[in-house]
């Protein structure tokens, strides 16, 4: 059996990539994709722990399904916002969407 640490390292790497993407990317759609990456990293974590510590119970697995659901909803919402911004300002570059300041 693959040791738990491998899953955790994979999850950590994915999560870090996600954070890097969120911080470094400028395009709204790419940022959203990075956010998805982070969410899936968490999912891997969940399932790994669930299978290793309590294989009989479904708690961790159910959590994973919830996270996937919420992620889907969130992306739907976020993409709609991005679409509106693009329609209005002809750009999806977050650097240029900066009216929410003092």
């Amino acid at each position, binding site marked *: 059996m693959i040791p738990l640490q491998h899953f955790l390292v994979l999850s950590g790497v994915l999560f870090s990539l996600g*954070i890097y993407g*969120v*911080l*470094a990317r*400028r395009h709204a759609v790419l*940022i959203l994709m990075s956010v998805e990456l982070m969410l899936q990293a968490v999912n891997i974590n969940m399932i790994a722990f669930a299978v290793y510590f309590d294989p009989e119970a479904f708690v961790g697995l159910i959590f994973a399904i919830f996270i996937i659901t919420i992620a889907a909803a969130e992306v739907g919402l976020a993409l709609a916002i991005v679409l509106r911004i693009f329609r209005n300002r002809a750009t999806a570059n*977050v*650097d240029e*969407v*900066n*009216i*929410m*300041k*003092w």
Partner: protein
Amino acid sequence: MELGMEQAWLLPAITGGTFAFLLLFGKYLPRGGDFLAVGAGVATFVVFLFILTDLLDVPRESLPIGKGWDWVSFEGLEIRLGFEVDEITIVMLAVVTFVGSLIVLYSTGYMRGDPRYGWFFTVLMLFITSMLTLVLADNLLLLYAAWEGVGICSFLLIGFWHERRSAAEAAKKAFITTRIGDVGLLIGIILFWRATGTFDISEIIEAAEHGEGLLGDGTYLTLATLLLFAGAAGKSAQFPLHVWLPDAMEGPTPVSALIHAATMVVAGVYLVSRMMPVFAAADPIALDVVTALGFITVFISAAIGLVQTDIKRVVAYSTINSLGLMFIALGSLSVTAAMLYLLTHGFFKALLFMASGSVIHATEEQEVSKLGGLIKKMPITGWTFAIGALAMAGLAPLSGYWAKDEILVALEHEQNIILLALASFSVFITAIYMGRIFYLAFLGEPRDHHVHDRAHESPPVMTMPLVVLTALTLVSGFIVFSGVGEALGFDGGFGEFVYFEEPEVFHFDWIIGIGSLIAVIAGLAAVPYFWGGTGERAHAVAQQFPWAYKLVKNKFYMDEIYQVFLDRVVFVLSGILAWFDRNVVNDTGVDGSAMITRLAGYRAKFVQTGQLPNYAFAIAFGVIMLAVIAFAVEF
């Protein structure tokens, strides 16, 4: 429903409801709704009669009886909306409902044609409501609220003609002067509450009698008692807080009759009577203070009354004089004498005010130097005023005589011959100045023919209350006799009905009775001697003692002393405080902290860049820092 003492709350409810109705809809009613006010007055008197009948049916030990509701309920603080009746209350109720109704009726004549006719009756209703609440309250806090309620009504009514600067000033003076005493009263009430944990009057009295808790400490009890008395002294115009009452005559005369003669000003006497067991339980010095201030007040007011020339002001000073006498009686523990004087005084002083109001109404003049010889023109007013003045002077067998007799007898019980002599002397002076004012206004030759020609008898709606009050002035003193009391359904005379500790069967003390009668007759006889003709003998006396005359004429310079005190102490102190408030509290404290916040906000707003990556970085950095901190704490 059976009407009785448990329904005493109906009294303020009736007038209070009328007040609210008049306030909201008064201007849509014909005549400003004065008929409603008169109706409410009569209704309170009828309810009072039911309550009195009920009171006579129950044994005395079960008093006070009443009804109350929880109003505010906290842990350790219970405030009740309770109304109760005992025998002292019933005397006050008699005065307030009876004299009150008569004066409301009289006002419909006196105030006719006034631009704020309806408003007058509205405030009058509020006053009667407050007064009834004050009288019926079963706890000190409700009493205090009503106490301030009558104060504000007094303010509104003294300043009723506030276009006149002097009226506005007088209203302000009355309110502020009585407030000084009221602060004492409030502190006193709080002290009693702190000691007993209750505002209930009966419970406080019981605690004081048994010396429970903090009230067992003589100094504490005496201090609290004296503070209560400070409130009473302010409301009842005792030296040195008496200065507001003469100025209060700026108000319409029915107001002077109701508030500043019959009801509000005797609230202090009522309070002390009600709390008499507390005064008795306190150090004797508390009662000595009551007596001493009573005497000072009596003599100051009597002396000033001798030289005043305004008919209403003389009556006002005679009121202060009477209030002093009531406190002298209370100082000798004689609730009987004080309450009897309060009752009869309510009748004859209201009569005197309303009669002088009738003069003012007819002549538009209240300086006696312009009056004179009015009795032929205004016979009813003249004769009723005469009877009122004689009752105030204390001539037998009018009511004032019996009341003063009770006070003198009470002083004799105290075995204090000097005080007795002083009180008898004050009776003599009272007779002089009451005789003088009647003599100058109604007898002799008219001094101003213009005014005299204008004089005419007042309408029946004004003279009728005068006649009713005159009848009561004539007979109300007889209730001291057991036979009269029994005929009316009481257990006996007044002394067996209202008393402190022991009931007292009336017995006539010949030496005092004849002595005071001689003093009165001597005083009255001196009047034509001094003020007959052009009054040159009185002038001669004044010129013989110019300094004394000047001192009395200027009311012992009390107003001037207060003015100097205000200018030198109060205004200087308040100037310093105002400077502190403006510069330190306002500019530095309030504006300063606001400035700091604004500046900080101005600087901090640049954190909001609007750049999404910045926010994302802040979140990520925050999470990492939290993780580092959690790691550091864990290991």
